C-alpha cells in the first residue's frame, strides 16, 4: 500500500497526462461511434434487411481481436491516435447500433399508427416520441460502449497513442505491480464515473442531448485543429520498443540530435510497442527513427537467414538488406551486444551442473520453460534450440517481464533473457553458454526512415557518435538504474553522454 502511494506520488503528473489522453481518445471515439451508430440505426429502421446486414457487420468488427485490428490499421493509417480512434469506434458501433435499433423498432406499433394518422412527419415522430422512448436503451448502449472503449483504449499505448495503457505496459515491463494497479484502477474509476454520468442523459430531452453532443463535437474539432496547427512545425519522431534500454537509447538520440542542431525538435515515443509495430510505423513514416538490432533486422524484417554469426558481417548484411528492401538506413552499431540467452537459477545450474545449452538435453524432462512469445516463434529462438540442439521442453509463453517473476517463484526453471537485462543480476540467474552458436549477435543501431538523412543532414553524424560506444556492463548498469532504481531514462542517458564527452 505504501509502495502504491509512493509510486502514485512519483508518477502523479504522468498519471494526469495519461488520464487526460485516455479520456480524450475515449470520448472522441465514443462521440464518433454514437453519431455513426445512432444515425445509421435511425436510417435503417425502415430497411429491415439492410439493418440486419449492418448488425452482422458490426458484430464481426467486434470479434476481431483488438490487437489484430490495431495491427491491420497500421499499414493503412500509420500509428498513434488515429488508428486507436478508428479501432475504438469500430468496437463501440455494435452496442450503440444494436440498442438504438432495438429501441426504435420495439416501439408500440399503435403509437406509430396514431402518429401517422395525426399527420406527423418522420422527424416529428423521431423527436417527439421515438427517440425519447428509445433513449434508455440507447443510453445503456452508449454506456456499454464506453466501458468497452475505456478498457480497450489501454491498448492504444501499444501503438503510441498514450493513455493509461502506458502505465500498465510500463508496469508489466518493469515488473512493477504498483504501476499496473494505478493504471488499471484509474481506468476502472473513469469507466464507473462516466458510466454514471452518461446515465444522467437518459432523462434529458432529445434537443438538450443534441445540443450537448454538438457542443462536445465543436470542442474536440476545435482542439484537434489547434493541435494540428501547433504541431505543424515538422519534428523528428523517435520511438523505442518496450523497456528501459530502448528508452535510454532514444533519449541519447534526442540529446545528440538537438545538441548538434538546436532547430530540430525531437519528440520521443518510448514504450511504443513490439518490433512489428515499430517497423510498420517506420515504413509508413509515422515515426522517423528507432533503435533496432542487427540480428532482428535480418531475422524478422528482411527474413533472410544469417550467413554466419560474425558480428561485423551480420551488421553489414543487415544494413544492405534493409536498404535494398525498404530503403531504410541503418547507422553505425554500438559496442554492446544484446543477444538472446537462456537462463536458469544459480541453484538449478549447480544442482545439475549446467553451464551450456547442450547440457540441457540431460535434464530435458525436468525442464519447465517460460519463454516470451517472440522467442518461442523465432528461428533463432526456441525453434532454433529444438533444431540445433535437438531438445524439446515443456513450454509456457509469458509477457517479457513476467517470466522473471515466474522463475523466481519456481513456476518455471528455464527462461529466455537478453544478455543486458538488469533482472539477471536482481534474481541471481546464470545464462547458459550458446555452444552451438545459435543466437546471432544483436548489435543495436538507429534504423532510419526513408529520406530522413537527406532532410536532416546533421542526424547521421550525431547518431554515429554512439558507434562502438556503450559496453555490455554500461548498458546493464543503466538498465538497472532505470528498472530498479526508478531513475528517469532521460537523466541516465544525459549522464552517460556528458560523462563520455559526446555532447561537446
Amino acid at each position, binding site marked *: 500500500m505504501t509502495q502504491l502511494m509512493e509510486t502514485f506520488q512519483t508518477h502523479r503528473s504522468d498519471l494526469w497526462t495519461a488520464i487526460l489522453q485516455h479520456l480524450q481518445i475515449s470520448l472522441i471515439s465514443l462521440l464518433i461511434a454514437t453519431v455513426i451508430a445512432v444515425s445509421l440505426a435511425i436510417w435503417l429502421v425502415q430497411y429491415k434487411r439492410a439493418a440486419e446486414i449492418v448488425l452482422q457487420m458490426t458484430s464481426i468488427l467486434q470479434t476481431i481481436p483488438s490487437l489484430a485490428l490495431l495491427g491491420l490499421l497500421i499499414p493503412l493509417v500509420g500509428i498513434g491516435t488515429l488508428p486507436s480512434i478508428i479501432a475504438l469506434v469500430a468496437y463501440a458501433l455494435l452496442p450503440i447500433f444494436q440498442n438504438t435499433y432495438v429501441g426504435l423498432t420495439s416501439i*408500440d406499433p*399503435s*403509437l406509430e*399508427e*396514431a402518429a*401517422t*394518422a*395525426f*399527420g*406527423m412527419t418522420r422527424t*416529428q415522430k423521431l423527436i*417527439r*416520441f421515438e427517440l*425519447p*422512448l428509445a433513449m434508455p436503451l440507447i443510453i445503456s448502449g452508449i454506456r456499454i460502449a464506453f466501458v468497452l472503449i475505456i478498457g480497450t483504449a489501454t491498448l492504444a499505448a501499444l501503438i503510441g497513442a498514450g493513455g493509461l495503457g502506458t502505465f500498465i505496459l510500463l508496469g508489466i515491463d518493469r515488473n512493477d505491480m504498483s504501476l499496473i494497479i494505478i493504471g488499471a484502477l484509474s481506468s476502472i474509476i473513469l469507466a464507473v464515473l462516466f458510466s454514471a454520468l452518461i446515465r444522467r442523459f437518459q432523462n434529458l430531452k432529445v434537443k438538450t442531448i443534441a445540443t450537448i453532443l454538438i457542443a462536445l463535437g465543436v470542442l474536440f474539432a476545435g482542439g484537434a485543429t489547434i493541435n494540428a496547427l501547433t504541431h505543424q512545425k515538422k519534428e523528428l519522431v523517435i520511438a523505442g520498443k518496450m523497456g528501459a534500454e530502448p528508452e535510454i537509447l532514444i533519449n541519447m538520440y534526442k540529446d545528440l540530435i538537438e545538441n548538434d542542431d538546436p532547430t530540430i525538435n525531437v519528440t520521443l515515443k518510448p514504450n511504443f510497442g513490439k518490433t512489428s509495430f515499430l517497423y510498420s510505423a517506420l515504413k509508413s513514416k509515422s515515426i522517423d527513427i528507432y533503435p533496432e538490432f542487427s540480428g532482428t533486422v535480418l531475422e524478422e524484417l528482411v527474413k533472410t537467414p544469417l550467413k554466419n554469426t560474425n558480428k561485423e558481417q551480420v551488421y553489414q548484411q543487415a544494413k544492405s538488406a534493409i536498404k535494398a528492401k525498404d530503403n531504410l538506413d541503418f547507422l553505425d552499431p554500438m559496442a554492446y551486444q544484446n543477444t538472446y540467452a537462456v537462463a536458469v537459477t544459480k541453484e538449478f545450474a549447480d544442482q545439475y551442473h549446467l553451464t551450456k545449452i547442450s547440457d540441457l538435453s540431460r535434464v530435458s524432462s525436468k525442464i519447465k520453460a517460460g519463454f516470451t512469445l517472440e522467442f518461442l516463434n523465432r528461428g533463432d529462438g526456441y525453434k532454433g534450440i529444438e533444431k540445433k540442439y535437438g531438445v524439446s521442453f515443456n513450454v509456457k509463453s509469458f509477457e517479457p517481464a513476467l517470466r522473471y517473476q515466474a522463475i523466481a517463484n519456481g513456476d518455471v526453471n528455464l527462461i529466455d533473457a537478453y544478455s543486458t537485462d538488469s533482472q539477471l543480476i536482481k534474481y541471481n540467474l546464470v545464462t547458459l553458454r550458446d555452444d552451438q552458436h545459435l543466437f546471432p549477435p544483436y548489435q543495436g543501431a538507429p534504423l532510419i526512415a526513408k529520406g530522413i538523412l537527406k532532410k536532416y543532414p546533421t542526424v547521421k553524424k550525431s547518431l554515429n557518435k554512439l558507434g562502438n560506444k556503450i559496453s555490455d556492463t554500461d548498458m546493464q548498469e543503466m538498465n538497472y538504474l532505470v528498472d530498479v532504481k526508478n531513475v528517469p531514462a532521460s537523466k541516465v542517458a544525459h549522464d552517460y553522454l556528458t560523462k563520455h564527452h559526446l555532447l561537446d
Partner: protein
Amino acid sequence: MNRKVYYCKLSSETVNISNDFINKLNRSGAHILLDFKHVKKSFKNVPVLNDFNLHINKGELFVLVGPSGSGKTTTLKMINRLIDPMSGTIEFEGQNINKIPLHDLRSQIGYVLQQIALFPNMTVAENISLLPDLQKWPKDKQRKRVDDLLLGVGLPPEDYRKRMPSDLSGGEQQRIGILRAIATEPKLILMDEPFSALDPISKKTLQDVVINLHEELHNTIVFITHDMSEALRLGTRIGIMHDGNLIQVGTPDEIRRAPKNSFVSEFFGLDQPNMHFDLTEMIQNSFGIPFDETADYPIISAKTTFKELIPILAEHAVVNVQDDNHHILGTINAQSLVRYDASMANSEVTH
C-alpha cells in the same frame, strides 16, 4: 339531458320525415362529408371489402358495427389513408381523398384507437396539446385549450395536467385519447372500438362523453364497434357489416323495426328474450321519457315481456306503462328500451 329530448323528437313518427329530408339533402350533396364509391380491398387475394358504398353526412355519429373480421377497421383506415383501396374512390367533402395532400387530409381527421396509444413519454397536457403544438399554436392558447378540454370531461386540470399516462386508469386514458383527437377541432373523428378494452362502468361513462361531445361540437364521428348495444346507444345512424359487405344502413329505430335479414336480427339480439327485463325497474332508473298528459299514448302493463313489447313499440313508438293498480308509472319509447338494454348488457358483464 338535451339528448333525451332530442331522442323523443326523433323517435319513429318523425323518422320518415327526417329520412325524406336527408334523402333530398343527399341528392344535393351539400351535407355529405364522406362518400365511399365502389370501394374494394383484398389482402393477399383474400377479399376484405366487396364493392363498399356508403355516404356519411355532416354532423352524424355514424356507427359501423359488425363482428370481428368483418372489415370495419379496414374501412375506417381507408378514410385517413392508413390503407388505400384497391379500386373505387372515397370522397371527402366531394373531393377524392387521393387528390388531397395527405397532411391536409389527416389534419382534418381525428383518430382514436382501441389501444389508446397515448405517448408514454409525454404528460397528459403534452399528449392533448400534441396536435395544437405541431400546428404551432401559441403556448398559452394550448394551455387554455388543455384545461378547457379536461374540464369538459370531468378531469380537474390542476390534478391531471402533469400526470403521465401510466398514472391513469384505462377509462381516464381513453378520455385523454379522445381529447387529443379533438384538440384541434377536426371536421371528422374516427374511433376504432375505442371502449372495447374498458370495463363496463368506464365504457358507459365514456359513451356519455362521446354523446356529449357530439352534441356540443356538432362534428362528424365515425365510430366502430362490435357491440350492438353500444351501436344502438350511440349511433344516429348505423351501418351493419358482415364478411366485407355492408348489410344494412339505417337509424337504430329502422334497424330494430325492420332488420334486413336474419343475420341483422340475430346480431342485434332482437329475437332473444332478455333475462333481466323489468319495465318497472326500467322506468325507476329513468330510462323512460317525460310523461305527457296531453298525448294519448297506448297503455301497457308493467308485466309486459320483452318479446311482447317489441311488436308493440314497433307499431306505436311511444307507450305509457301502468302498474297493477292502473297507476301510470311512466312513458317509454324504442330508445328507452335500447338504452335500458345496453345498460343491462353492460352490467351483465360485471355480474
